[in-house]
């Protein structure tokens, strides 16, 4: 517990904030320093932090979290259409509606645990997805997706006499247009707030109760704790995080489609969390960043780029190499994702954060007198407690 002192948490938070705000600088060497990708990092980071509050702390594996992301997106676009192009109401309503939706689904799903809970959430998400495509078309605009129109009422805007530009308006923050970098910084600030809240939750007595649910739910109820409202609160909070992420997706690109709710999208956030390290503070964000980065880089590759990369090799060597690697890039990016998923679950169930902890331990042990067993216990504890 001494690793998670308020001082250490403050340092962690400060470093995190600086790293996020300085992202355009340090991502440049990776070729990721453009707002479209950077804001994806931030948005999916938020999604994964929220998912981690449920899965990482309580151990409830939801396979339907993309539904809340979708609700957030639809709500935000509707706020743009009906109220105003200011992003604050869109984000606010996105979070609230996703929270209400999560409360309804959580109320039913949390009656079961384990794999039954997973299947219940999956069933609810699939229902939402199927309905969004069919009966709810008036709300979702079906396959085309919900988008802005010049003829949208935007009641608040017209009430306040905000001038409507020719063509489609873009989202703004009190008149300040959110396009390109401003849009990224808006998402970045949201990510920092989301991270801070998650840090507070994790370190609070409430967070301790959530970890106790994962550890031994049975003991917890014989200890006088009603576990249902705790799990419920965690579910709703993580649903609201997903709603925030969804509404930010709409802020960066005012369009919402049902495919965001598909269960493979739910699987993606599970992967992000596991890849980075479920139950850790930074892991899920790291996982989200890595997956979005490689998705972006790898899916842009094709055989021609591969050939140019390996052009220095003789043909008899580069051709088969390109043929094999070609499987994993471009359209085959999903294959890389699936393989990565397996490798992580098989070899590193604690995710990259656990890998890092192990590495640190290894280097410590190599030092002549530094690596005591106390160190090992300490870092193991730290891993569990969140850092």
């Amino acid at each position, binding site marked *: *517990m001494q690793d998670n002192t308020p001082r250490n948490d403050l340092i962690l938070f400060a470093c995190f904030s600086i790293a996020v705000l300085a992202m355009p600088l340090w991502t440049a060497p990776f070729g990721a320093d453009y707002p479209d990708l950077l804001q994806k990092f931030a948005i999916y980071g938020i999604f994964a932090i929220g998912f981690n509050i449920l899965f990482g702390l309580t151990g409830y594996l939801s396979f339907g979290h993309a539904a809340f992301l979708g609700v957030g997106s639809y709500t935000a676009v509707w706020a743009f259409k009906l109220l105003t192009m200011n992003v604050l109401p869109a984000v606010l309503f996105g979070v609230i509606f996703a929270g209400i939706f999560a409360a309804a689904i959580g109320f039913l799903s949390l009656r079961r645990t384990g794999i039954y809970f997973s299947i219940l959430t999956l069933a609810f998400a699939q229902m939402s997805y199927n309905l969004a495509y069919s009966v709810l078309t008036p709300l979702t605009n079906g396959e085309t997706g919900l988008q802005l129109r010049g003829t949208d009422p935007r009641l608040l805007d017209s009430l306040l006499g905000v001038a409507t530009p020719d063509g489609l308006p873009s989202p703004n923050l009190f008149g300040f247009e959110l396009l390109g970098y401003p849009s990224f910084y808006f998402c970045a600030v949201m990510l920092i707030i989301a991270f801070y809240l998650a840090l507070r939750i994790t370190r609070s007595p409430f967070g301790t109760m959530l970890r106790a649910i994962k550890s031994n739910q049975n003991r917890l*109820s014989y*200890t*006088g704790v009603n576990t249902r409202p705790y799990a419920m609160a965690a579910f709703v909070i993580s649903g609201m995080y997903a709603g925030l992420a969804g509404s930010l997706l709409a802020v960066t690109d005012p369009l919402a489609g049902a495919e965001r709710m598909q269960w493979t999208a739910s699987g993606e956030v599970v992967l992000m969390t596991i890849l980075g390290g479920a139950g850790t503070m930074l892991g899920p964000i790291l996982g989200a960043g890595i997956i979005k980065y490689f998705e972006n880089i790898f899916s842009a590759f094709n055989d021609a780029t591969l050939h140019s990369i390996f052009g220095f090799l003789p043909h008899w060597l580069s051709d088969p190499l390109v043929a094999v690697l070609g499987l994993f890039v471009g359209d085959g990016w999903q294959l890389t994702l699936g393989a990565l998923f397996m490798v992580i679950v098989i070899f590193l169930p604690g995710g990259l954060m656990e890998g890092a902890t192990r590495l640190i331990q290894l280097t410590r042990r190599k030092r002549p007198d530094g690596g005591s067993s106390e160190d090992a216990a300490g870092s193991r504890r730290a891993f569990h407690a969140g850092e």
Partner: protein
Amino acid sequence: MSILQVQNVNKSFSGLRALNNVNLTVEEGHVHAIIGPNGAGKSTLLNCFVGRLTPDTGTVTFNGTSLVGKSPHEINQVGVARVFQTPEIFGDLTLLENVMIPTLAKRDGAFALNAWARVDGERAVIEKAEHLLEDVGLADKRDVLANSLSRGDKRRLELAMCLVQDPKLLLLDEPTAGMSRADTNATIDLLKRIGERGITKIVIEHDMHVVFSLAHKISVLAQGTVIAEGKPDDIKGDPRVQEAYLGGAHL
């Protein structure tokens, strides 16, 4: 004064009668032992007290309130704590956290959205938990993960988790099962020491050495019925008890 009254409790599992008209009265401040051969219904009876099972008929009254139909956390909140046969602890949390959780549950009730305070800022809770860890002799391991403890230590940790709540009634399901003689003696000493706090205890036990060194009163359960009840000395001489055990234990 009696703290727990059990009246005409029946419980069947798919036609099999596990408890048959059980009546039991536990006096406040007493150590009340329940003994009996395997399958006599001892654990079933305990499960009826803590809300894991609901009796088919009959009443269980604790301090004037009925426990029947209440869920486990409600029963704990009125002051009943339980130590399990195989220790139920939070394996991947530290010992300190293990004891802090019941302390928080006692202070904040069954649910509190206490998400803004820092858990390491809860000085009073930490101090109380540390104090209890000291009591059971685990203070030096407060930052170790509970999974790494030996079985005997796990049991002592579980005991600390129950005691930190200052329960009015403590249920102990075979507190020395699978322990070495030395560990057993240490546990008896510990139980005697906490006996001084005046907590009422119900103990299920096979080890007669433990039973006779602790209990004020003993109930003997066989085939779901209480066949004898009385002071340890009375029970020792009771022929029905010896018959029930068929000489299986040295009384």
